[in-house]
């Protein structure tokens, strides 16, 4: 499972980095989304991988910490997802405004001269 997740994060990050370096605003926003997926997975992995483990200790039972999933990264991911969703939506508005004002979807507002 580790190798699958690691590959997924790697592929998402690589695609995201490539896309945010592209000259079209739409590519940039998709790149940002992919990067934020990669980061969300990464945060989850930082709490160590475990399957079939509850995140909460039962009341009045100390339990072995290795049997339980770390709940904190899950909470962090939730916050990060909400925030990146909101900022992506905001960026989408700016993207449309820029398209309307400049008539091009180039990130610099004008086509590059070749």
């Amino acid at each position: 499972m580790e190798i699958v997740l690691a590959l997924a994060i790697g592929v998402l990050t690589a695609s995201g980095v490539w896309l945010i370096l592209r000259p079209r605003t739409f590519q940039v926003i998709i790149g940002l989304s992919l990067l934020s997926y990669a980061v969300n997975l990464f945060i989850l992995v930082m709490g160590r991988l475990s399957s079939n483990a509850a995140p909460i200790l039962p009341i009045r039972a100390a339990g072995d910490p290795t049997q339980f999933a770390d709940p904190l990264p899950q909470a962090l991911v939730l916050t990060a997802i909400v925030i990146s969703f909101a900022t992506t939506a905001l960026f989408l508005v700016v993207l449309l405004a820029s398209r309307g004002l400049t008539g091009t979807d180039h990130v610099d507002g004008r086509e590059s001269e070749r």
Partner: protein
Amino acid sequence: MSSFADHLTIAPVVLPLFAAAIMLALGGDHRVLNATLNVGSTAALIAIAIVLLRAADAAPLGLSAVYRLGNWPLPFGIDLVLDRLAAIMLLLASVLGLAAVVFSLARWHRVGAYFHPLVQLLLMGINGAFLTGDLFNLFVFFEVLLAASYGLALHGSGSARVMAGMHYIVVNLVASLLFLIGVSLIYGVAGTLNMADLAARIPTIRSEDRALLEAGAGILGIAFLVKAGMWPLCFWLPDTYAAAPPPVAALFAILTKVGVYILLRLWPLLFGGQAGAAGYFGGEGLLVGGLATVAFGAIGILASQDLARLASYSVLVSSGTVLAAIGMERTGMTGGALFYLVSSTLGLAALFLLIELVERGREPGADMLAVTRELYGEEHELEDTTHIGLVLPITMGVLGLAFICCALVLAGLPPLSGFIGKFALLTAALNPQADTISVAAWCFIAVLILSGLSTLIAMTRSGINVFWASPDRTVPRVRAIETVPVVALILLCAVQTIEAGPMMRFMYATAESLHAPNQYVRSVLGSAGEAPKSQRVDQ
């Protein structure tokens, strides 16, 4: 934990939040009511910040309150920590906030929707970032202030603003992602996000995990350095600041300082001398990067053709100087840097506001013409002689005087506070703890003095162009409410000069507690509160 004074700690976050919520509920139509609320709330923030500042300064160890949200025991819950550094930054932010809001009342708040609630949300994010003692909470407040700043940078629209704003948003979104990666790496290694707990745990981290921790800290640092505008992460800054509406640019003067503040807070705490093998990690990077930023900013100032860009590059010089001083990792340096930070931020905000007033009387592109005239010497026409002997109108007098004061503060010349800040930095650099002055200190001294010189040259040049040599200028129509914030900010610099003794004492005390983080850790974790009942049953 129940008295009113304790809850005052969270007021700088809650008050703007409620003010913004009420404004949004009112809607954009009630402009007068919104403006009143905004001014009232920001003025109340100043009052609160002064009370908190006095409390923090009077407290032993300079740390007056650890506010546990929801009364959760530390290090599990989120805490707000009020110490001298947080208090002085709170005061600075709210002063800039009030100046910008009052300035905007003349006309800028009308050029787009939701100016007032956005300012309040920005202040909420800034104040929260100053107060919080938890890394992830810091991320959340960072996002609050960034989201508000995106809206404000685009206030008034127009294609220049949208283009600069788009770059600003992308750069900051990527920086936020780096922030998250850094935070999660640190959590993965240290198992905590509370700053004090983290500082306590770092010396005990196994050596094979230290590389991962340092990678996390480095990535986290990059996120803050993007915000602080360290070279080579600063190319977004001049465009955005020059394109932003003037009151917003004045507010943004504190945004770079938020990044600087976090470094000041976290770096000596986590990687100070007590951190064992991880100590002093990255200090050289800060120093070199800071010096490069100052050099880049100084060249940018000389090369700028319009005043707004000149001011934006001055922002880089200011934050670069502070970054380099932090990188020196010495109490005297940090104290001087704090004094310099306050004075240069006030001066920059005044300059951003002033520029708009000055530019109003000139046709667009006049700066370009002025530089061209200088280059080709085409100004030997005698038409201007008719104007000789005319008494300058009072407006131009006030604006010119204010411009001179800004130049004095930013270039660091006496008698204003910029001089005292730079003098403190130079004194600290020339009085090392070791016998010899290091090469780094000499570089710092040279760069500091040269950057002051280039600021002075550039501001003198543009001052002559704007106030004396500009052909067919009309006196700008300036309302009193617009000059008041500018004059007030400059007066604050003057007060800082007159009260330099007590202020320097305060700054040095702040620096001392920053460089003795064990006290911070003990005060924060010592107030951990009762353990929850279930945990006791478990044992």
